[in-house]
């Protein structure tokens, strides 16, 4: 019932990417992932005093598979969105690609390097941005932290100046550079983190939730910036996000993983239609909601406030009817969070859909 088969995805996306270039420009993939597998062994014990005493001399452990034999390629200059619910294995994969984690098995080649060897020549060409982990020194002005990065990455002076000017311009950093990091707002700090992570002009960017916790304006700015950086420097970007809008704005191609396994790898257009066939209508109105079931699936209904899910195609009609029939004060139409959508798709799958329908053609 769900046929998400994207035939020969990798070659298709490479072909799309290289469109308009000469054949000589077809370079080998920047990122090559083969059968990448990561299993943790986690201690496990039942609740209660007796169980905790038992675990003193006999430790029960359980194998947990975080990432299950995934394979994919990313071509130079591609921006790929990495999607999946919490705990799907996105961050684990990103950490393995960046070189922080050793896989249990499988191979990864990024720019010709094996990431987890962490050779300086590799580290100088990539960056990993994980939202809450601050690389900036908390107590000193942002510019001083950047200066430290300049030395750590041995960036030549003129290149450093040019890059910093460019980043400061794109992200409007100038008023922030002289402030200590601890005095910045979350959005400001994220901008500064991002710029700091790009001073050495990495060719490969791994971005884990680059817009998490930011307001809409800041999200939009970061998105525009990432797209701009990628084009200017022909950088390859792999990003995870909770916000479908991030992925929509940036990535032509998405990779969906769930329970560690790769479930979809293909163009975004097909994914959105299939994974997010609904819109969420959030309404504030006067009085009791009455029966909202006739407009769509009721998610939430209370006096004065309700959330209704409708099919995308019906969204306009349902909105019009709601406005006509209810004393609406406020109404908003939105895509549901991508996590929710994907989770829903996969729980539908668990409820009976054939597993192999979601299998990726590889």
């Amino acid at each position: 019932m769900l046929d998400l088969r994207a035939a020969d995805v990798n070659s298709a996306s490479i072909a799309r990417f290289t469109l308009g270039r000469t054949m000589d420009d077809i370079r080998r993939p920047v990122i090559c992932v083969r059968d990448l597998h990561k299993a943790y062994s986690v201690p496990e014990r039942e609740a209660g005093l007796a169980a905790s005493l038992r675990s003193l001399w006999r430790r029960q452990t359980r194998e947990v598979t975080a990432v299950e034999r995934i394979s994919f390629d990313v071509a130079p200059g591609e921006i790929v969105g990495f999607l999946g619910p919490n705990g799907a294995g996105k961050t684990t994969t990103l950490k393995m690609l960046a070189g922080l984690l050793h896989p249990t098995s499988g191979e990864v080649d990024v720019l010709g390097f094996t990431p987890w060897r962490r050779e300086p020549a590799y580290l100088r060409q990539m960056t990993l941005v994980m939202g809450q982990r601050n690389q900036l020194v908390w107590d000193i002005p942002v510019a001083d932290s950047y200066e430290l990065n300049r030395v750590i990455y041995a960036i030549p002076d003129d290149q450093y100046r040019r890059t910093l000017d460019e980043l400061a311009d794109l992200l409007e950093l100038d008023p922030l550079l002289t402030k200590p990091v601890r005095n910045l707002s979350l959005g400001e700090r994220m901008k500064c983190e991002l710029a700091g992570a790009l001073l050495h002009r990495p060719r490969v960017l791994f971005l884990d939730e680059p817009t998490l916790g930011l307001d809409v304006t800041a999200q939009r700015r970061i998105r525009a910036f990432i797209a701009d950086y990628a084009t200017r420097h022909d950088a390859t970007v792999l990003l995870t996000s909770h916000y479908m809008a991030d992925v929509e704005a940036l990535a032509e191609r998405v990779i969906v993983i769930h329970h560690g396994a790769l479930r979809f790898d293909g163009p975004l257009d097909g994914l959105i239609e299939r994974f997010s066939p609904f819109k969420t209508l959030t309404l504030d109105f006067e009085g009791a909601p009455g029966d909202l079931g006739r407009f769509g699936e009721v998610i939430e209904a209370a006096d004065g406030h309700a959330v209704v899910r409708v099919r995308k195609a019906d969204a306009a009609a349902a909105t019009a009817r709601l406005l006509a029939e209810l004393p609406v004060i406020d109404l908003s139409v939105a895509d549901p969070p991508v996590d929710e959508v994907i989770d829903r798709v996969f729980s539908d799958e668990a409820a009976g859909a054939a597993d192999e329908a979601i299998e990726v053609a590889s």
Partner: protein
Amino acid sequence: MNDLLALYRAQFRTTIAEQLQYRGGLAIWTIGLVLEPVIYLAVWSTVARSQGGAVAGFGAADFAAYFLVALVVNQATFTWIMWEMEYWIRQGHLSPLLLRPVHPIHRQIAVNLTFKLLTLTVVVPAALILGVVFRPNFAGIEPWTALAFIPALVLAIALRFAIEWTLALAAFWITRVTAVNQLYYVAFLFLSGQAVPLLLLPGPVKAAAEWLPFYRTLGFPVELLLGRLSPQDAAVGIVAQVGWLAVMVVLLNAVWARGIRQYSAVGA
């Protein structure tokens, strides 16, 4: 090499800027550092006086000399890496450091040296004031002991740094390393000569302490400077320092490599 020098310079500037933000905290820290040997000094001076002026040949003025030099040596050699490493690993702060093209130890060395230079501005005047109050006996200091003290101190700094850095890596395997740290500090307190000059320890303990590395990082340079060691003992001590340093550097590298593997196997 030039890159490394530039890195140390930059880290030096950053650390100064950082530490000066918290002048109050820095001052309190340093006061604690100064007070600790003053307590040993007061206790041992009292013991000496109650025993008719000296304990095993140590008079009040000798204790004063010993603990004042020990104050300066301890200030130069102590590290806080065992506490910091646990925090880095638990909170994930180690991860961004691993992704830089420079070994994290360089940052730590640079920060440590900078911190020492900053606290020196308090510790040296404090030692001078204490000198006036406790009237130490520095009669044993000779030109050769002063000269030999310099390499002994530098080696002591390097050796203690390597020991404590290696022990700090226990945090890769043990969730609560505070217990390990505490054990180390108690052992260090008695076997290094920090709380008691080695001379006052019972025979077998003293012999053991001389073979262990802790004494080489604190008591040895102090006794050397104060002229309590023969030139032969001084030479043996410096050779022991070099030997222990070599052992610790090898160990540090081996443990670091394994620890990082562990860290990146279970979830950095």
